[in-house]
């Protein structure tokens, strides 16, 4: 009997959200199939890869990453090298130095860095806050303001500060709003509902539904992403049809398998290799589960994941 292929057709699709301005833009989402199911329907947009840099420069990054950025002394230099990385679709600037429990840099100081980076590169930009809800509520609206016209993705509003960040990014300054929840499918949907109730266009929202490093409660991430794509496509739930972006690097480079030095753990081998392995494994799993974009740090991870996406497209 001949094989009779029955494509799984959905009368729904993930929103297409474009980041960036001018000639340099990337489109996230837009597909009406489960990830990489190009046999069910043509892929509208392949998944995208971003390169993470932070306002802390090269402090604390692995030797391999340092080597890639060798000679870069300013944030502008670092941003340019990040944008030029093989496989990179966009640059993600994390303002981690703003954390009141860390460096506690002032908003002005951070905005100066944002401007420096934005002036140095013309590629699409994602700007992430410091994760402190109060500080981000102050910082991210300013970021949205100074980057007017660049159509950047602001990561992220949360349940506690969506009014300040969502309204500034999505309404006042016409940027793309990132909505962050922590592996909680009901909250992911709720945040989209209340953000659109503020008046933000649903087509201008991207979700970060949270992540974990592979091996660290990662099953919840998979089931949450899978359920979101299922509801978005199968139930045509327009409050879950926003594309998903997943900052992978910030999760994977923090676990002991990636951060322990070779001197401390000689039997584990070189730190860079372990970090790359964790980053690639997690990113590949995120993409297979439903992420429309991932943010990575190591040039080898960026190149590998980008190659995987192209091979499976």
């Amino acid at each position, binding site marked *: 009997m001949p094989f009779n292929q029955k494509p799984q057709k959905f009368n729904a699709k993930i929103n297409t959200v474009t980041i960036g301005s001018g000639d340099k833009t990337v489109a996230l989402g837009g597909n009406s199939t489960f990830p990489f199911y190009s046999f069910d329907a043509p892929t509208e947009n392949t998944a995208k890869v971003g390169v993470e840099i932070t306002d802390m420069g090269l402090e604390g990054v692995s030797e391999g990453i340092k080597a890639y950025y060798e000679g870069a002394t300013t944030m502008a230099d670092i941003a340019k090298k990040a944008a030029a990385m093989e496989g990179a679709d966009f640059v993600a600037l994390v303002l981690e130095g703003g954390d009141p429990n860390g460096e506690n840099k002032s908003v002005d100081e951070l905005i100066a860095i944002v401007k420096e980076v934005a002036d140095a590169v013309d590629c699409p930009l994602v700007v992430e806050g410091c994760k402190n809800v109060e500080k981000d509520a102050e910082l991210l609206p300013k970021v949205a303001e100074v980057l007017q016209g660049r159509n950047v993705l602001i990561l992220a509003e949360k349940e506690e500060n969506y009014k300040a960040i969502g309204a500034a990014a999505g309404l006042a300054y016409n940027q793309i709003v990132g909505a962050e929840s922590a592996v909680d499918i009901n909250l992911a*949907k709720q945040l989209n509902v209340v953000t659109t109730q503020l008046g933000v266009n649903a087509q201008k929202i991207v979700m970060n539904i949270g992540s974990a490093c592979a091996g660290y409660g990662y099953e919840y991430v998979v089931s949450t992403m899978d359920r979101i794509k299922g509801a978005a496509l199968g*139930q045509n739930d327009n409050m879950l049809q926003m594309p998903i972006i997943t900052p992978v690097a910030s999760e994977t480079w923090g676990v002991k398998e990636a951060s322990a030095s070779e001197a401390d753990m000689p039997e584990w081998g070189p730190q860079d290799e372990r970090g790359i392995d964790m980053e690639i494994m997690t990113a590949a799993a995120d993409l297979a589960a439903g992420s429309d974009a991932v943010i990575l740090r190591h040039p080898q991870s960026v190149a590998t994941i980008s190659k995987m996406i192209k091979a499976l497209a």
Partner: protein
Amino acid sequence: MAKFVTIGERLSTTAPAVNKAFTERDPEPILKRAKQQLDAGATYLDVNIGPAENDGEDLMKWAVKLLQSEFDNVPLALDTTNMKAIEAGISVYNRAKGKPIVNSADAGDRIANIDLAAANDAIVIALCSSGMVAADNDERMMHCQNMLERGMMLGMEPTDLWFDPLFLVVKGMQDKQMEVLEAIKMFSEMGLNSTGGLSNNSNGMPKHIRPIMDSALVAMCMMQGLTSAIVNPNDLRLMETIKSCDIFKNNTLYADSYLEI
């Protein structure tokens, strides 16, 4: 499972204001009622133009174009005994948001509406009766089988026949209510879709009682597998009940604001 499909029933010639607006081709009252229903969460809108023996074709075309152009190709149920008017409506109908529904066929005089739906790739509401209300579920299911076979012979997908058990009024037919619920279960077990004029159950009851009875019944029906109902979407209690049942049935994903969307 798909979300429960509500068909808004408020565009009907039985309402004098609507009747007048249809007769005079006055868009304003029609659009106002349509918007109220869509804002309240109706999926489909029923367009009941009455028998419309004289100008049915022209009127149905006018109504379909008016509603679909104003409300982003809102899907419609075309409701009249005038078959030519239904065909005329379908000829100008945009399917982007869903197939048209032919409202309705039965197993008796109106069985030809199944042929009409089949010829036009439409959904049809199939009343499980022939002239009189079915005496029992044996009769109901016989009508169901006959209409299903007819539709399938004509190339229809079984899921495009939405079977209507005929909701019965409690005041007078209280002892038949559980039978209707059992019929819904049988449709559901056969993998069929179902719908009906659910509020008929509370006909003749005081106004403040009707939403309570309708809500209780819709919850029981959804438990049995009812997939759609022709309702007044501006009945808040009823719509809240439907949305809540959709959550329990895992038809929609819960969010704290689920009643607002």
